[in-house]
């Protein structure tokens, strides 16, 4: 078991496990945490999983772990690992089954006070318009040809087909499309699962949430993002659905053989990987990109449904019910990026599993209005607590491969949460505190109880202290839709 004395303290909120901790470590493991969050990280296997991940070939600098870390499978959730091109590896388990799980935020000019009497209707309309729940399909039935187009075009497909506005794409990571997708590397099973699920939320920790902008910390950035205190906003958290899950499963299975071929020794079979320049590595990267593009399109179609729900519930009751994209960002993904390592610019594959890209000011890909500010970062809390809008910084580029936290991070198992919390009581409590709840599964709601999560405000304080993000605004939930 890893203990606090195994770490070297490198700064007020930065700790390191050196490679001397275990013989097979190729790079150190760092964690951004205060004492309390470090102790929370040591309460499960997350740091052991980070040490296991540090054995992957081709890693540069260190594995860096975010303060919202918790135990996952293979990699910890909240881990960032960069492998050097061309020979470093790519690991499907280091990206996760829900490829490009991410968050989208939309702003509005709807006063929460004016909308308050209609929030129940709005929650109902969102629940009715945005398909959610286990195995629930959407209103679209894609042909294989359309699915292949989405794999290559991502959110651009939704623009061509009437589900998006130009501004939505401009304010999406990578414009909602990553180059290099090849649908020929996606199995027929993944396509079968993906065809009926575009524009669906799914279940588990995925949600749609209506929030009020409670406090603005960075007026200039908030103004650029259209976030105004007292106004409604909308968050969508979901990913690539069964399409991505199947792609990851297929390649975790396939790469079991690749590690033997490339003589890669691993402490955990979930960490299977292949060199980025190997045929297996290239195939996985291009299939993963298909799922990432599917997820951008999925969240975009959900936005289309959400806009319809806002119109149904609020037209004629408020003067302007439009939703404007703030940003859309992935937190489970592998991206080919350029970073400075030991003073030298190198191309790396950044695995972010439960970590959000947080590029600083000057990043070319950002739309004009954000370029001098830095990239918006969206950090949802648990369903009854705050969520945060942050900005990427120069510090995140220097310290964490342009990454920061992705949420509150679980601290309690689902099994325990369900034992301690009853879904129907939780819903009553949330409703009585002014949060409208629409959920298909009461046990599912109980598993996502706020008690099962860390304090998102404490997580955000730490990333700000570490200099890997800046605060822009805090959001408070008013309505939660869950599968």
């Amino acid at each position, binding site marked *: 078991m890893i203990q606090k004395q195994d770490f070297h303290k490198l700064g007020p909120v930065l700790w390191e496990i050196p490679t001397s901790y275990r013989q097979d470590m190729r790079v150190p493991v760092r964690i951004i945490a205060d004492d309390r969050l470090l102790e929370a990280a040591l309460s499960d296997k997350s740091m052991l999983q980070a040490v296991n991940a540090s054995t992957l070939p081709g890693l540069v600098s260190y594995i860096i772990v975010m303060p919202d870390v918790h135990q996952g499978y293979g990699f910890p959730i909240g881990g960032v690992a960069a492998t050097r091109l061309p020979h470093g590896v790519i690991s499907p388990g280091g990206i996760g089954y829900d490829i490009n799980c991410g968050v989208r935020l939309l702003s509005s000019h709807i006063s929460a006070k004016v909308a308050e009497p209609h929030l129940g209707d709005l929650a109902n309309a969102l629940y009715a318009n945005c398909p959610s729940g286990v195995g629930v399909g959407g209103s679209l039935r894609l042909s294989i040809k359309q699915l292949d187009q989405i794999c290559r075009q991502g959110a651009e497909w939704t623009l061509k087909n009437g589900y998006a506005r130009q501004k939505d794409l401009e304010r999406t990571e990578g414009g909602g499309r990553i180059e290099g997708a090849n649908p020929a590397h996606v199995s027929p099973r993944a396509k079968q699962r993906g065809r009926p699920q575009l524009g669906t939320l799914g279940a588990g920790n995925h949600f749609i949430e209506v929030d009020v902008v409670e406090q603005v910390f960075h007026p200039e950035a908030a103004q650029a993002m259209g976030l105004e205190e007292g106004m409604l906003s909308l968050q969508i958290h979901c990913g690539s659905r069964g399409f991505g899950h199947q792609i990851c499963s297929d390649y975790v299975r396939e790469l079991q053989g690749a590690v033997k071929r490339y003589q890669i020794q691993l402490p955990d079979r979930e960490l299977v990987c292949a060199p980025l320049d190997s045929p297996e590595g290239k195939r996985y990267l291009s299939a993963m990109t298909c799922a990432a593009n599917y997820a951008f399109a999925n969240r975009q179609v959900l936005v289309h449904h959400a806009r319809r729900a806002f119109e149904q519930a609020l037209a004629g009751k408020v003067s302007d019910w439009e939703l404007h994209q703030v940003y859309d960002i992935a937190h489970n993904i592998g991206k080919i990026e350029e970073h400075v390592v030991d003073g030298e610019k190198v191309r790396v594959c950044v695995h972010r599993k439960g970590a959000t890209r947080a590029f600083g000011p000057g990043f070319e890909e950002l739309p004009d209005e954000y370029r001098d500010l830095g990239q918006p970062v969206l950090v949802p809390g648990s369903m009854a607590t705050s969520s945060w809008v942050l900005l990427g910084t120069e510090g995140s580029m220097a310290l964490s491969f342009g990454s920061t936290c992705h949420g509150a991070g679980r601290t309690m198992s*689902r099994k325990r949460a369900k034992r301690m919390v009853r879904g129907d009581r939780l819903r009553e409590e949330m409703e009585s505190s002014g949060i409208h709840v629409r959920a298909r599964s009461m046990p599912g709601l109980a598993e996502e109880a706020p008690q099962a999560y860390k304090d998102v405000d404490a997580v955000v304080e730490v990333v700000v202290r570490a200099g890997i993000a800046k605060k822009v605004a805090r959001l408070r939930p008013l309505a939660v839709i869950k599968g």
Partner: protein
Amino acid sequence: MKGPYFEEVEHTADRALLVRGADLKELLHNAALGMLQLIGAIPRSGPSREREIEVQAPDRESLLVTWLEELLFAMETRGVTYTKFELQITGDTHLFAKVQEMPIMVITRHIKAVTYHDLEIEKTEDGLVTTVVFDV
């Protein structure tokens, strides 16, 4: 055999099942039952349908993952659950199963995937034991 055929064990974010079996056939059978219980799938009343499933994998841990994935895939794409399994194992790498399928009425929990995380089928005094972690 000491202990139940399967039991859920603590995992911070996902779900984990400890599964026991006198041999590989029983272990795979019990893992399927455990996974169905985690999912909370309730069949619709009516006649069931027999279906055959064949799975091949390079080793027994992969056989376990591939078998459970096969069931998950059918559950999602055809909306079915299972009431009975009859398994035959050849070596440690081939599984032939006759299963009774029924349409799902209710499903409580989604399982995204069966993982290989720390997956090892170990021998004990009275059979085999393993822990399977599911991404949920």
